[in-house]
């Protein structure tokens, strides 16, 4: 029997085993040995073939029996010994090379992050030392007088994010409930696909949509209506209808956040154990009761995690917001007001700010604030999801 599997196959197999069985990286010296043992334990190599078609084609025809059970084929011991000796050096070298490449890759990402952070801090330093913490709550931003404060932009950013989430969360939850429990089967695939496509549309397209659709709609219908009804009692809803403003920007960013929240929510709804659902029916609940009192509470952690990720997405959104928010550095007091977010300020003025050290330092410090907020929020959201969902959803939740 000729048993000398190709190096690459051996490697893939090793990697698979290590990942599946051990879940840890091993020393190259022990790897070959480890592999021998593992292959022998595996009684059905066809289970491997589901993971890699390559292995299917080169998998040994003869199935090994477990070493604990029957004795090995008389030939195999010597073949294995031979194999170990001849290819050990080769494996060793290619392993090293591969490992080295991975280290470079890993460190490149680290270095990249460190560079971005380091350069930003260095460039922002004049502003950090001049304004200190008060930069955060100063609302004056006047390049002419060299006074810079982030408050207006921080508030604007949170306004847009808040409106976006308030709009996106109910819509996303309702749509995912519909898809998981009420929708006819033929609709599920289509809507889910559309939902994923929605997540992939560039934000500038949403911005343009906002200008041609959302702005006229708000200006001519929604905002005058709000002003004449709720606005009569609360200034918060009043104002003169422009169309542009935090409401338009928030709603459009909300549209962009919906797929993110809806996808994760639907995925977690599907994972609610069938037994739980059936138990609830057995206790006499209607479908609506089952959905609201059993399924929905079960997926709350998933929703929270996805909302945090949506927050991370919304807070950094630039193009769509820039086109719709009205770019006015004032603190909104009504949802009809215009505002300014950190990201749209940077997009609008940064190329100009570079001519003045303090001005550009202040803008970079704004960028740092945004970086810190989204870093914290994204990490929080991801950790929460991992913890609550047992890591099962880790792959489906991209960063903001």
């Amino acid at each position, binding site marked *: 029997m000729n048993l000398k599997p190709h190096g690459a196959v051996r490697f893939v197999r090793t990697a698979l085993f290590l990942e599946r069985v051990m879940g840890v990286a091993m020393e190259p010296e022990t790897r070959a040995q480890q592999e021998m043992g593992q292959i022998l334990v595996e009684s059905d190599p066809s289970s491997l073939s589901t993971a890699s078609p390559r292995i299917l084609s080169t998998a040994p025809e003869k199935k090994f029996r477990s070493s604990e059970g029957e004795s090995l084929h008389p030939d195999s011991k010597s073949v294995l010994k031979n194999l170990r000796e001849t290819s050990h050096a080769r494996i060793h070298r290619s392993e090293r090379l591969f490992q080295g490449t991975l280290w470079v890759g890993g460190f490149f990402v680290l270095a990249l992050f460190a560079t971005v952070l380091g350069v930003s801090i260095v460039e922002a330093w004049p502003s950090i030392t001049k304004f200190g913490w008060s930069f955060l709550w100063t609302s004056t931003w*006047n*390049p*002419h007088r060299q006074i810079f404060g982030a408050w207006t932009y921080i508030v604007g950013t949170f306004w847009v994010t808040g409106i976006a989430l308030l709009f996106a969360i109910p819509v996303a939850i309702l749509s995912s409930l519909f898809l998981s429990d009420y929708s006819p089967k033929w609709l599920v695939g289509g809507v889910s696909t559309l939902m994923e496509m929605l997540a992939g549309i560039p934000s500038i397209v949403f911005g343009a949509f906002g200008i041609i659709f959302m702005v006229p709609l708000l200006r001519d219908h929604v905002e005058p209506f709000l002003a004449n009804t709720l606005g009569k009692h609360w200034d918060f809803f009043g104002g*003169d209808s422009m*169309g542009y403003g935090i409401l338009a920007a928030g709603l459009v960013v909300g549209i962009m956040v919906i797929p993110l929240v809806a996808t994760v929510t639907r995925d977690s709804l599907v994972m609610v154990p069938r037994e739980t659902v059936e138990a609830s029916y057995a206790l006499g609940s209607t479908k609506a009761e089952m959905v609201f009192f059993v399924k929905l509470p079960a997926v709350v952690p998933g929703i929270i995690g996805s909302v945090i990720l949506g927050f991370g997405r919304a807070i950094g959104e630039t193009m769509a917001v820039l086109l719709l928010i009205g770019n006015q*550095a004032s603190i909104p007091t009504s949802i009809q007001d215009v505002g300014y977010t950190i990201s749209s300020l940077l997009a609008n003025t940064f*190329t100009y700010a*570079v*001519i003045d050290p303090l001005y550009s330092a202040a803008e970079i410090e704004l960028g740092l604030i945004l970086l810190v907020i989204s870093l914290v929020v994204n990490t929080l959201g991801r950790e929460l999801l991992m913890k609550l969902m047992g890591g099962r959803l880790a792959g489906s939740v991209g960063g903001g």
Partner: protein
Amino acid sequence: MNIVKRSAGFALTLAVVSVLSGAGTARATDLTISGSTMLFPLEQVWANAYMKSHPGVHISVASTGSGFGISNAANGNITIGASDAYLTKDLRKRYGSLAAIPVAFDDTQVIYNVPGVKKSQLLRMDGPTLARIFMGKIKFWDDKAIRAINPDVHFPHRRIKVIHRADASGTTFVFTDYLSQTSKEWYDDIGRDLSPSWPVGSGYNGSDAVVAAVMATPGAIGYVGLGWINEYHLSSMALKNLDGYYVVGSVKTIRNAGKAALHDPSFPDDFNRSIVWNLHGKNVYPDANFEFWMVSTALPKRTMLEVKKMVIWALTKGQQEKYTVKTGFAPLPFAPLKPRLNKILNRLLPGNSLKIESGG
């Protein structure tokens, strides 16, 4: 404008610069023009026409903003830096090697959308009132200050919606220049800047967005350059000039402003003074502006000779209406420009005989 010493030091900028300058080695003559987004369309048609008539010359044009144009022309990353603004005292101190060459005229005009006021009806506006509108101190169209200047116009009681540029813009610089020169309040609080801190209103990215927002918003007031007025057949306000005349911006009245400045013996030879407001004459528009090319005296002589050729072409043949007026600029009058231009070119190429063809 408070502009302190510093050349752009960011990765993005560097990348753009290295691409621009990297291209320079490949051809016989390679000129890079970069800067003002306002001047960009004119530079594009110029570059195409010039390359057609001057084989062997390659011109790459980029629209990167006036600030980029100034700083990168000074440090030699680009051949010519385009700028909407002249070299202020601060800039001259920092970029001593730069010479500003005026290459075209444009202006800033005030556009509006007042329901009930016909397009054919001429609206007048003076600096202090305009400044108070843009500061949010005049809130309604039927304010008595506006009615006092326009006694024969019936204004609705409608809120004024101020619309301005959100990005750093030469148009904004020229507009706030007019406000700064005519209103002390504006000068003290906000000043003249490409991107000032606007007290009220809403901001849009680019002149096209401003036009769209003004047209779509009843009660709006905004400002754009000459090119946009012509392209969209907008009506703009007649602005009060130094001698008290109300003048509507047009190719003719802008040229008048330029001529008035060029014939003024006190106007500096290096062009480093605004032509906004401080000009006498009946049909002189008070908010006109030179567009500039910034050239560093440190350029190698061979490149400088090419730049000189290109500049003279741009100021003569390049001023034809098919280039300038088509792209939204007013042509420069060549004759009154010549003495000052000679001095500038002499500074760039000392001791070089300057044969300037007539034209314009």
